[in-house]
């Protein structure tokens, strides 16, 4: 029985009287695609912030590859291999696509960054950036200003920036957000490719994509994980159905 790569244990986060995360626990096994679903207001984003190091939980633990990373900074999480992408695209809008990725590659490098050698001459960094560009399918837009890209292309770059950090586990916050059917299809293809080498934790509303991609699904309701299992198990779970009562997506 393999050890889980990510173990979230009894996380609690309160904002005033509201418990946005209310004793949430679940596990992600290495190599799987794990989806986190839940109705609006369930607290998915807050949970993601805590797992990725952007928000400190009030109590509970986040264990990654056996280590307790609960109170580590975000950049420490990244160095350990736990990397996230954002629901609201967060790229360097005034830089070209290639420069965006090169910057992420430079950021990930261990050790102190040099003060003398020009970054633009760093062949290794740019080669890695070009490989990433090919992987996410944006090579034809290398020199385009990333702020001018189409929404779907920006979301691809968003994933690319996260990939540059060489993650062991990639935490994707609604990668398909705001995408039309064609763009979503491209993103699903990209994720299918990534799953071969990475563990993915996916937060998504797009149920069709979730059921296509996920090996296992956890359902978050009012800050608590009420069910964790295979897509089939989740589809038939009575509490999950109750939580989504009236929601057309699950009925499909």
């Amino acid at each position: 029985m393999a050890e889980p790569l990510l173990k979230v244990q009894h996380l609690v986060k309160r904002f005033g009287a509201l418990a946005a995360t209310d004793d949430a626990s679940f596990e992600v096994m290495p190599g799987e695609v794990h989806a986190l679903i839940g109705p609006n207001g369930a607290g998915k984003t807050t949970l993601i912030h805590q797992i990725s190091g952007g928000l400190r939980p009030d109590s509970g633990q986040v264990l990654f590859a056996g280590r307790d990373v609960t109170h580590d900074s975000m950049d420490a999480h990244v160095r350990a291999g736990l990397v996230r992408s954002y629901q609201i695209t967060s790229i360097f809008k005034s830089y070209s696509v290639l420069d965006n990725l090169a910057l992420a590659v430079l950021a990930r490098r261990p050790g102190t960054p040099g003060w003398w050698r020009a970054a633009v001459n760093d062949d290794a960094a740019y080669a890695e950036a070009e490989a990433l560009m090919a992987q996410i399918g944006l090579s034809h837009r290398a020199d385009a200003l990333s702020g001018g890209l189409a929404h779907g292309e920006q979301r691809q770059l968003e994933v690319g920036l996260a990939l540059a950090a060489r993650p062991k586990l990639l935490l994707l916050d609604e990668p398909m957000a705001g995408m039309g059917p064609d763009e979503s299809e491209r993103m699903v293809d990209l994720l299918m490719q990534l799953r071969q080498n990475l563990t993915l934790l996916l937060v998504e509303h797009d149920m069709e994509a979730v059921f296509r991609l996920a090996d296992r699904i956890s359902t978050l309701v009012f800050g608590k994980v009420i069910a964790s299992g295979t897509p089939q198990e989740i589809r038939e779970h009575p509490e999950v159905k109750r939580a989504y009562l009236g929601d057309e997506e699950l009925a499909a």
Partner: protein
Amino acid sequence: MSKPIRQSALHHAGPGKAVLLTVLALLLALPFAAKAMGLEFYIGVATRVLIFAIAASSLNLILGFGGMVSFGHAAFVGLGAYTVGILMDAGVSSAWISWPLAMLVSAGAAALIGAISLRTRGVYFIMITLAFAQMFYYIVVSLKAYGGDDGLPLTGRSLIASGIDLKDDAHFYWVVLALSVAVMGFLQRCVNSSFGRLLQGTRENEMRMAAVGTRVFLIRWQAFVLAGALAGLAGALLANLNGLVTPHLMHWTQSGQLMIMVIIGGAGALWGGLLGAAGLLILEELLSSYTLHWHMALGVVLLAVVLFAPKGLSGLKRARRQAKETIHG
């Protein structure tokens, strides 16, 4: 310096070898020209411009390139100046000792102030840097042993080597020129390096930088300390130029003046510090010869720059270049 293999809009290329060498030649020849025309006074003016170019460029590093609006940068200039003044008062006149020590003192203060201030953001950062600068100002004012409010006069200029007499304005000018060329050259390499890229990245999108693994605090702190050290050097040179160190050097209005230089020259532009220092000091010279109330004109000019030309002088050059490109297709 090798030509970059690839193009990147992020690389700050500078004006090119031909322009650089021409400007350098002109600057080297300045003392001869001034003496020939009987305008020796302008050697001192030029020296002042170069010293403030160092100070403003150091602020440009953290403010323009790093996005940290530090309202207390004059404190580091003042600390460097006072280090030289106090050492000379104690009998130590060698530039080889007092100038590096000035940089060290300012760097040390920056390390301390930065460690605390950089935990804050936005307006709080502006306020806390201002607070620290005020603290140093009041501490220095209270040092009656070193003149308090009136300041401490220097008995002479620092000693460098036999053959170079800094009391000779032309010699001092050339030493300052050499140092400012070294500083600008170093800063050019610095902002184009990996460190510089990461620093500018934290200005562009701090959250994303952390999310790709950057130690944001550390990068900013290093830049802050480096800027402090360079400001300390400017302070050491300023002490020599003025022959006097006063607490006024650290007053928050002096920090404001450095910020004005950065914005006039162009924040985040390679030569922003140099252009801004030259621009402001020349503007002050011109305006003060016309009217007693030149502060009014300066205020109006500054207001106009902020409202209508926020990228400063560097922006004008870029705008003209872009206009040319559109015309020529």
